[in-house]
């Protein structure tokens, strides 16, 4: 072991360390690029032009998986009496509530879609629920399904946004989705999207593959270094064996140096 620490091997050791570190940094950089590009693609859908709600989902349709976070344009009449609060919603790191009012799409007795108006710290501070007709843009979201139990079914606070719970408050059909109003309604801060669209499995897969490759190269650098050191030590031993006996005398058994 002491043999391997001789100054004449230092440049080799240094080179191995530098190269290994370089491959690790490059690998981390590629993996980071992979994650960033996936997030960027996930956000992209939420930045597209809004489409009419009924082009994405009908009142009786299951949630279209590819439209998570799709901006939608929806017009109708507020069902003020159906206003609810959903607990356990964070905004800027603070725990609070979403304020939600169902909207009869197209007015009249049409089916309604729950609209998240925005975030409030406490339902007591919430503004009066909206009334009348409205046209708004928001992001389409699939309903929650965490199976959390509403511990007090008599109040207007729900632990999760489930269509089956909201439907108790309005006397009509509901869409199997909800809309997070863009920019918030009535001055409320906009609720943060609970679910972002998923990036395709192959998005930026090249960066992932390059990242893995760099780590493999890192391993290869270590392997090269190991072989190089082994050869150098073996060559050194041969020299020592062939050289004067006095030179080997002060080494403790050089042939036990494991290469």
């Amino acid at each position, binding site marked *: 072991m002491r043999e391997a620490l001789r100054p004449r091997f230092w440049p080799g050791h240094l080179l191995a360390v530098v190269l290994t570190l370089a491959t690790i940094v490059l690998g981390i950089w590629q993996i980071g690029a992979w994650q960033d590009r996936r997030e960027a693609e996930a956000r992209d859908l939420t930045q597209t032009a809004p489409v009419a709600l009924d082009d994405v989902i009908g009142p009786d349709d299951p949630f279209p998986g590819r439209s998570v976070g799709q901006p939608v344009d929806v017009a109708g009449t507020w069902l003020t009496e159906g206003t609810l609060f959903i607990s356990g919603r964070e905004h800027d790191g603070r725990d609070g509530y979403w304020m939600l009012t169902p909207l009869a799409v197209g007015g009249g007795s049409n089916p309604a879609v729950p609209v998240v108006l925005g975030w409030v710290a406490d339902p007591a501070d919430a503004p009066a629920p909206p009334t009348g007709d409205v046209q708004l843009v928001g992001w389409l979201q699939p309903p929650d399904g965490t199976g959390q139990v509403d511990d007090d079914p008599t109040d207007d606070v729900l632990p999760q946004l489930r269509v089956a719970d909201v439907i108790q408050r309005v006397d009509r059909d509901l869409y199997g989705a909800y809309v997070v109003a863009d920019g918030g309604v009535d001055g409320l801060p906009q609720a943060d999207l609970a679910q972002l669209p998923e990036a395709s499995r192959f998005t930026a897969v*090249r960066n992932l593959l390059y990242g893995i490759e760099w780590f493999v190269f890192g391993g*290869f650098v270590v392997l090269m270094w190991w072989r190089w050191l082994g050869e150098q030590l073996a060559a050194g031993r041969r020299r020592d064996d062939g050289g004067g006996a006095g030179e080997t005398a002060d080494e403790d058994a050089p042939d036990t140096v494991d290469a």
Partner: protein
Amino acid sequence: MKGLFTAYRVLAIVVGVLLAVCSLVALPLKYLATEGTSLQQFGSDLSVLWVVHGWIFMIYVVVAFFLSRKAGWSYGFTIVALVAGLVPLLIFWVERQVVHKLKVENPDLEPVA
């Protein structure tokens, strides 16, 4: 040794061809052809081969390294042989050098075409 030698030659040619296609065909088409043309799209699609090149190059590097140790090449030549997989067309020259070197030193490898 012979298996390693054959594997080296096959990998060298595959890496060389992939690198030549990527850097001399895909790259210019992707960046120099007019945006939106089918030629540009072709160059862009062909760029997937960079990933294939990367992974085969990885195997090439390991095989070349073990061959270099078996054949006792100098570290200078070993590094040229490894880096050759990253410089377009260089690997074809290196492959010829390797074949020449090994055949001179090991006449028993001769019947490789």
